[in-house]
Each structure stands twice: as structure tokens, then as C-alpha cells.
């Protein structure tokens, strides 16, 4: 399947959000999509319950992050509420040894890749720029520079080609990033070299205060074919569609057919970060419309219809979420800040006389205070 989901060139990007491939309606009803269907035939009720649990746990991590920021325990938090289906659905389609390149908002990708509670909060607390070893999670450090990681993903995929491996790289970025040169350069490189990379554009409608219409006058998925990259525009609040579409894209890349591109149409329910005030630039009505399209409620409705949402299951997921939230909180509250001279560590892999001198000088300076206190 080398698909481009039918795009209406006259679509209003902000409102015509139903021009997407979908397997689960906003009301929670299963629908058939001829392209996507084949990719989730093995997804049974138990698998859907696992996706539901993932999304609930992610939402709880996110809520805990916001709360910790409000309480002064972390400096900043980029909420991902509303984007759970996109993050969980796509990340769960990756193999453990594939390599993900998430942006700062992809908390759910880090979670799905096996991130620990401390991995969600310590960087935002300011204890380190990142908290996990990229090689252990097969996941790059969450990127803050917009779109820069898309090139890293392509380079990694070019490396896979040269090693003769069959891993896939996944580049995650938002709709704002598609305006960046790096994302466009990444698509040129990926296409020209046939690199096994999947681009996942989370179109959450807003780049801080700029609506997607400032970034695009045509649906973003429509750009990829111009680079020779097949693409699909999926409902980003439909976890089944995200899973299926990503499985298609990953399979396409893994089989040596080159890159693929997904645009997941979703919505950032909260602010850009805890420093942002979205009430200054968007209407309550818009937020309410999207609240009715909630990705978790949608799966709940499906599970209820399938009689798989009993009290036992609900209690189990709630208990798991409570436990994870407590671990996240504990990771933040129990954080131990590294000793001062560690700021000089890892600037270089090999000795560098300039840094080494500054470390010695600053150590002497700090020791001077210690000597004063002793006397």
C-alpha cells in the first residue's frame, strides 16, 4: 500500500479535521477503513484494554507533571493532554530495537519506550538535560530545538542501511516544525537515499499561539508526496488508527521501500507549556469541541460496547495510575542535585585543557568558602 489519504484541497485546516483515516469514531464506534483494517487484525479486546491503560497512565503522568510545576517541584512542563492516542498508538507500533527521536512534548513516546518515572520529571526539574541513556531506550533525548531531530532520525536510518539492519527510525515533530528547514531537508535526504525512517507529524493545531493555518495552507500530509514519500492523514485521537497507520508506515520502511509520513490530526488541550496562557489566543468553544473528541473517552466507549470495561478493570487501571503518579512525584521530591563540579563533566569525551583548568579553578574557589567556614 502506497497510500495518500484523499485530501480535499479546499479543506479548512482548522475545522475540516474529519478528513482523516479512522477506525474509531469520536463516539467510540468501530468503522472500517480499507487501508488501515489489515494492520490491526490481531488487535483484540485485551490489546485495546492495554492501549487504554497506556493512555490513562500517560494522562496521569502528564497531570502529575503539571501539578509538580504548580507546586514548584519542576521548573516547566509541556503538557500532552489530548495527544495520548497519537503518542501511544504510534510508539506501540515500533519494535524495541527501532529508534525513536521524540520532541519535548512526546512524554508518551518515552513512556512507551520504557521510560522510568524519573525520566519524566528530572530534566524538567533541571537536574540534567536528559535523564535516560538513549541507547537503553532506543530513544533519543527529547529534542527542544524545533525539527532538529528529524535529520538525526534520517541519519540514523542511513546508518541502519549501511549496517544492513532492519530497524526503523521514527522522527516525531509537530505541525510548527514542518515550517522548519530541517524537516524539509530531512525529507529530501530520506527520499533521496530511501532511508528507513517514519516521519510522525503531530498536528495539534497550535504552535504556541500560532494556528496551523500559519504553517500550512494545505493539509500537511499532502506535502510528503511532493518529496516522493507516501503519506497518510489519520485521526490522531483514534488510537487504533494511529497504531494501524504507524504499523503500515513502519512496515513500509522496514521492507526497504523508503520513508513514510504520517500526519496525526489531534489537539493540544492544555497550554504549550506551563508558562503559556492559551486563553489569550484561542476560544473556549474550540477547546470544548475537542474535549468531546477525547481519545481516552473514545476507547472507553468502545470497551463498554464490547463489555470489557467492568469495575475490576477500571479499578486496576486507576490503581496503576495512582502508583505511577506517586512514583513520578517521589522521583521529583526525592531528587538529589549533583555536586557542583559535575557541571564540567562530559563537555568533552577526552581531556580538554581549557575545561580542565576551569574546573580546577572553580574547585579552588569553592574550597575557599569551605576553608572560611571551618575557621
Amino acid at each position, binding site marked *: 500500500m502506497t497510500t495518500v489519504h484523499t485530501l480535499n484541497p479546499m479543506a479548512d485546516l482548522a475545522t475540516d479535521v474529519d478528513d482523516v483515516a479512522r477506525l474509531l469514531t469520536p463516539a467510540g464506534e468501530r468503522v472500517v477503513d480499507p487501508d488501515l483494517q489489515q494492520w490491526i487484525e490481531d488487535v483484540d479486546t485485551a490489546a485495546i484494554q492495554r492501549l487504554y491503560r497506556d493512555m490513562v497512565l500517560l494522562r496521569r503522568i502528564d497531570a502529575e507533571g503539571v501539578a509538580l510545576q504548580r507546586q514548584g517541584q519542576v521548573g516547566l512542563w509541556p503538557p500532552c493532554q489530548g495527544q495520548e492516542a497519537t503518542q501511544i498508538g504510534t510508539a506501540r507500533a515500533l519494535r524495541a530495537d527501532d529508534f525513536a527521536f521524540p520532541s519535548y512534548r512526546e512524554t508518551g513516546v518515552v513512556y512507551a519506550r520504557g521510560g522510568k518515572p524519573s525520566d519524566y520529571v528530572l530534566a524538567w526539574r533541571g537536574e540534567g538535560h536528559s535523564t535516560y541513556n538513549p541507547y537503553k531506550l532506543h530513544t533519543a533525548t527529547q529534542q527542544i530545538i524545533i525539527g*532538529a531531530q528529524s535529520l538525526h532520525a534520517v541519519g540514523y536510518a542511513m546508518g541502519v542501511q549501511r549496517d544492513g539492519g532492519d530497524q526503523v527510525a521514527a522522527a516525531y515533530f509537530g505541525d510548527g516544525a514542518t515550517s522548519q528547514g530541517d524537516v524539509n531537508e530531512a525529507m529530501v535526504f530520506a527520499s533521496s537515499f530511501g532511508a528507513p525512517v517514519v516521519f510522525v507529524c503531530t498536528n495539534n493545531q497550535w504552535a504556541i499561539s500560532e494556528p496551523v493555518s500559519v504553517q500550512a495552507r494545505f493539509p500537511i500530509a499532502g506535502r510528503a508526496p511532493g518529496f516522493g514519500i507516501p503519506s497518510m492523514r489519520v485521526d490522531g485521537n483514534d488510537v487504533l488508527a494511529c497504531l494501524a497507520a504507524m504499523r503500515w508506515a513502519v512496515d513500509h520502511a522496514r521492507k526497504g521501500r523508503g520513508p513514510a509520513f504520517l500526519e496525526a490530526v489531534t489537539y493540544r488541550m492544555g497550554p504549550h507549556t506551563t508558562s503559556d496562557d492559551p486563553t489569550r489566543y484561542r476560544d473556549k468553544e474550540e477547546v470544548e469541541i475537542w474535549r468531546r473528541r477525547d481519545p481516552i473517552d473514545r476507547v472507553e466507549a468502545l470497551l463498554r460496547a464490547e463489555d470489557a470495561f467492568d469495575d475490576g478493570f477500571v479499578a486496576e487501571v486507576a490503581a496503576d495510575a495512582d502508583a505511577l503518579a506517586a512514583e513520578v512525584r517521589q522521583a521529583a521530591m526525592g531528587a538529589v542535585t549533583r555536586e557542583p563540579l559535575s557541571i564540567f563533566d562530559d563537555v568533552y569525551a577526552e581531556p*580538554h585543557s581549557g575545561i580542565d583548568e576551569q574546573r580546577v579553578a572553580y574547585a579552588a574557589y569553592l574550597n575557599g568558602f569551605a576553608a572560611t567556614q571551618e575557621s
Partner: protein
Amino acid sequence: MVQLTMAKAINEGLRRAMADDPKVLVMGEDIGKLGGVFRVTDRLQEEFGAKRVIDTPLAESGIVGTAVGLALRGFRPVVEIQFDGFVYPAFDQIVCQVAKLHYRTRGNVRMPLTIRIPWAGGVGAAEHHSESPEAYFVHTSGLRVVAVSNPQDAYVMLRQAIASDDPVVYFEPKRLYHTKAEVHLDVDPADAPPMGLARVAREGTDVTVLTYGAQVATALDAALAAEEDGISLEVIDLRSLSPVDYRTVGASVRKTGRVVVTHEAAREAGVGAELVASVTERCFHYLETPPVRVTGHDIPYPPAKLEKHHVPDLDRVLDAVDRVLDRPNSLTGVEQ
């Protein structure tokens, strides 16, 4: 030992590094069949194939950004930026990603990336083809910055840069590409003086001239001319701009007590400013007179027909020598 131009010496350095380590890749614009616009990568694609000698799209951020991903995957990419002035589109990837990934990941990710930049002026080139951007990279922690001045160093320091687990910005003076000299190709890069060490290019006793790249030749010419006036210049080829080898620099300054710094990059906040400040902090009581800088002017690189007024020449270096020696000079009688 063979006679080689600097371009050939670098070519041989690339060839041997690729032969020794299958993880070494070369990538850039026009580097394959053409062999690079300066022919520095001549015949490498023929020998190692298009998967290791990669002709890239014309996108500098793309070249460096994909090299980051390749390094993350365990490769050792050597990137060619076609001309100095073309590195700016890749600036974000170099200073925010290449320089910082090791620090960001607390040492888990290494960036053994070599960024080769044909560099600086004096060849009558068009606009954007004669820039001296070294200060931007020296100012960025996490990068090593080196500048070569002769074929032997070009060969050895390139091998060392490729072998280093740190990212290295490697500046090649364009106007020396065709300068020939004897090169020992069989020297083991691991045994040669490390790329972080400065080299005393000429010993002297009266004035220390600190310089790098193509200006080393200018400083050596100035030293020959000064000798006729009975003035002895010590010329230090810094070789590495990050870190600077202040042990070698300091020993020279303590001996001579007088310092001239010369480079062709603009003066304001340039490498010369850093050198003068650091030498003053370290060796103030040994200085007989204030150090003097001889640099390009604080102007955009001028058109080719006027570049000789921008790039410091032998006479401007000698004028600065007169100033640190309190001899009659261009500023004598000028109110400062």
C-alpha cells in the same frame, strides 16, 4: 617521505582513515565523482563506494544533521562544508546538537564527527567564499577547533580529528591547498604531537607572534624580514584554537615579554581578543608592552580585488612588531 600538496595530504588522510576503519564515512556536496570542488576527496568514491563517500543533497543543515544520526548509530562521519561561508545554514546543528549531545546525554552519546571547512581568503573568490568563522565555534563548548598550516599537520591532525571521540571543526586554508611540502605518511597519528598542542614554528627572543592557518606563513615571512633589522621573532602556530595550548604560548611570552597576535578574521570579539586577554591574565608581569592584534578589519569580507587590504600581510605584522617594541611605527605621533 613524499612531497605532497596540502590537498593531497588531506586526501591521503581520508583514504587511510577510511581504509583503517569501516565506520569512517565521508559526506558532502560534490565530493563523489567530482572529488570535491578542491579535489580533496579525489577518487575516494571510486575506492570506497557511494555508501561511504556520500554525495549529499545541497543542504548544509541536512549534511550535519544526518551526520549526527550516523554518529549516534556508531559511524565516524567526516563532513565537508564546501566553503566557509556555507557553514552558517548548518550552524544550529553544529552548536546546538553536535557540540552538546555528549553533555546533554551525560556522556552516553558520543559525537566523533569531523567537520572539514575550506577556509579563509586570499584566493580571489566570490562573496561568501572567504569567511573566517572560527570564533563562533571556539566560543561553543563541546567543539574542538583546529586550523592547519602545512601538509604534514593537515595529514596527521585530520587522522587525529577522525580518531577523536569529540567533534572537531577542522579548518583548511584554501590558499595553502596547493602548497607542497614533505609529508611523513607513515607516522602513527597516536604517536604524533596531539592536535591540541601548539608548535613553535620559528624560535626567537624579542617578540612572540601568535597565529594559525595561512597566517603562519605570513608571520614566518615577517620573521625573516625582521631578522634583517636585527629583531628576533618567535612564531607560534597555535594549531588548536579550542583548546589553546597556553603552556607553549606562556613559555614563549615569558621569554620574549612582547606579543603580537595575527589572524585574518575580524577583530571584534575574535580569537585574537581571547588570546590577548588570556595571555595578559596569565603573564601580566612578564609583559614589557601591551599585546597588539593584527587582524582583518571589522567589515564584511571585501571584494576580491580589495582583499589584500583586509588580510594582514607581512608589513602589517612588522608594523605591529614595531609597536610592541616601541619603535617608530604607523601609530607613532598619533594620539591614542
